[in-house]
């Protein structure tokens, strides 16, 4: 009897330590703790869940998927395992199955803002913007300051061109969760969308220093570095106003050069045509090359 309670206590300590390490993102230490714990307590659902979670966090999705499937066969209603499974399915592009898991979760936990945020992100990733907005709204109704739902709503605002001061969700996200990684990420995207790529780059670089293994951040920093490079200055209109500027410049050039056939001397027209062609080639090739160099 006392041996049993000693074992239970030991398991509780191991689980608590492992959870604390995972929360602090100290995954290698957490993995060692979980591994040792699973040797003595292989049936511990919590330790199995943490092992799968660590695999996912360390970008080992196949191992994580295997572990979470094994865990769900033992404990099919485990909330954490189910949410992790939905995220892993999404990462593996099994989107319809991921949706089924999110819907089942929301039927079982209709007040879980985490599930609304998770399902909403899946909808955003599959370009179902309106449904993502409704899910964020429902999640915020259940938990008005939920970080995941605020992030989702802020992203939708940005996509609908309501960034910065116009996005109440972004402001709330920054006010309520200033320490949250996603607050900073949303701010980076909002600044870049507003045309302040240098400001966005400074924050993104700072984020990358804290999470040097994040591929997403690395790509973001690389893109922002390319956008702020001095050689991109001739392409400023396209960077600032996107395809609208590209259309306007092309129309201006082709109409101008056509009208110029009558109005300009041939040598001037030829020079202008070559300048225009060089600009077109530069605008299509240089940004891609620059991103590879950086």
């Amino acid at each position, binding site marked *: 009897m006392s041996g049993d309670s000693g074992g239970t206590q030991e398991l509780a300590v191991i689980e608590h330590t492992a959870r604390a390490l995972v929360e602090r993102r100290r995954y290698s230490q957490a993995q060692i703790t979980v591994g040792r714990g699973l040797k003595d307590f292989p049936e511990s659902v919590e330790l199995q869940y943490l092992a799968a979670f660590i695999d996912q966090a360390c970008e080992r999705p196949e191992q994580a998927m295997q572990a979470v499937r094994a865990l769900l066969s033992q404990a099919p209603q485990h909330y954490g395992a189910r949410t992790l499974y939905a995220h892993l399915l999404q990462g593996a592009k*099994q989107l319809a199955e991921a949706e*089924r898991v999110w819907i089942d979760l*929301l039927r079982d936990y209709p007040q879980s803002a985490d599930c609304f945020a998770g399902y909403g992100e899946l909808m955003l*990733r*599959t370009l179902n913007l309106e*449904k993502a907005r409704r899910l964020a709204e429902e999640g915020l109704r259940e938990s008005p300051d939920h970080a995941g739902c605020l992030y989702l709503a802020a992203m939708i605002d940005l996509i609908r061109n309501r960034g910065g001061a116009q996005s109440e969700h972004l402001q709330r996200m920054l006010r309520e969760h200033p320490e949250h990684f996603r607050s900073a990420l949303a701010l980076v*995207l909002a600044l870049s969308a507003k045309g302040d790529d240098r400001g966005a780059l400074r924050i993104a670089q700072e984020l990358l220093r804290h999470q040097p293994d994040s591929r*997403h951040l690395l790509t973001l920093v690389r893109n922002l570095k390319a956008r702020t490079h001095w050689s991109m200055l001739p392409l400023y209109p396209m960077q600032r106003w996107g395809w609208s500027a590209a*259309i306007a410049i092309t129309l201006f050039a082709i109409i101008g050069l056509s009208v110029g056939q009558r109005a300009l001397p041939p040598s001037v027209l030829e020079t202008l045509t070559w300048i225009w062609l060089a600009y077109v080639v530069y605008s299509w090739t240089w940004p891609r090359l620059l991103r590879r160099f950086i």
Partner: protein
Amino acid sequence: METRDDLLQPTLGHRDSRATSIYSPQTGYLVSFFGGPLAGAAIALANSYRLKRLGSDWPLGLLAVAATAGPSWWWSRGGAHWITAYAGGAARELIFRVLGLGFFAVVYGWHRQYYRNMTFLGLTPPSGWLIGIAAVVGGLAVNIGLATVLS
């Protein structure tokens, strides 16, 4: 009014390989420039199909037909003398390019939030080469055929 239960109905269906991104603006821009409004409409409507929005986006096809047939008819009736006076022999080609880009501007505005969605989430668009080349060839063929018939 949509209820919460409506919100919990599957959107992605039961297929695992459903399209989750659309052809990039680069594809739409190049195809519209080289193939005209009809070619641009082929890409736009392919995107609408992928977004399951054909029911609301079909007027884009109608607009493309009007933007191709209307100017061709007008040109065949000799209504473009003043453009020829300014732009010379390449006037017809100029109009074709301007209409193509103008049509892409409409499509871009129409699907803008989906393009922005893809940019913000870093989603990779499908390769547009095959459909792009087919659309340009088809667009040019229809345009030439129309010009021949009307002249």
